[in-house]
């Protein structure tokens, strides 16, 4: 059964509805303490929320965090050069380094009023595959820069 967010304009309510729906489908999913975010585990652990819009355009935004070495790692310039190149080379995941120095991977799924289980599975699989591919391709840099 599809997740139906028709007329839902409340981010937290949409996120909670998504979590319950995912649980019923057998996904490894957990609502955050605030009730406004959640974590879903596929090949990677993704944290995110639903940006709800009653005007037929919901967005599921997911982030995967990777801690970088605080000492002996790479400089901000090296990080930015790598992540800019990675962003240039593919059109699935967005990479950036946040203010804490962690590498963040962001993905976004637009859906109108309803989300099907097939769509969510396709979305997670595609993101996991691209992220794993990049992780492998850039292993020399990431292996020396991440915890």
């Amino acid at each position: 059964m599809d997740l139906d967010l028709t007329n839902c304009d409340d981010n937290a309510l949409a996120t909670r509805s998504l979590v319950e729906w995912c649980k019923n489908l057998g996904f490894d999913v957990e609502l955050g303490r605030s009730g406004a975010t959640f974590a879903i585990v596929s090949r990677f652990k993704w944290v995110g929320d639903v940006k709800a819009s009653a005007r037929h355009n919901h967005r599921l935004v997911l982030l995967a965090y990777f801690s970088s070495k605080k000492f002996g790692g790479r400089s901000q310039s090296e990080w930015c050069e790598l992540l800019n190149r990675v962003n240039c080379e593919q059109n699935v995941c967005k990479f950036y380094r946040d203010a804490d120095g962690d590498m963040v991977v962001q993905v976004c799924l637009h859906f109108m009023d309803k989300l099907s289980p097939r769509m969510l599975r396709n979305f997670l699989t595609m993101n996991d595959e691209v992220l794993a591919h990049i992780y492998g391709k850039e292993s020399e840099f990431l292996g020396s820069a991440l915890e």
Partner: protein
Amino acid sequence: MNFIPDTEQSNEANTRALGTWVETLGYKVSLLGDECFILHGRQNIGVWFTQPGGVPKIVFNVLMLGSKNHRDPDARARLANELNELYNHVKVSFAPDGTFRCQASLLIDRELSPLFWSKVIRVFESGLEQVFRLHQEELGQMLD
């Protein structure tokens, strides 16, 4: 009428079909070879169809030429990182020649309705405008 991708057909055939469908909705469209069409609006958006792992997907791409006078790739990469952290509507990057690229994508479940298409385009255009308006000064130094 909705756009229904034909996953038996090539990406090029689906891109052409999508371009024709978008044109029938009243948008101004011009084909750019077989692999892409340009959607003319507040920005000229390159649009193409692809099927990574068999999942139908539309990619939106806006390119802006880099300034020949700006020769600091470090500053460009740092700005791209800052913008990617700030906004979740678009992904930005700079090509080695300084070209600025803003990108977004849309997965299609079974079909795409005119209403949903217009919503997604509007969100992408608004995201672009926000980036250009709020970062006019930094981008102005780096772009043609």
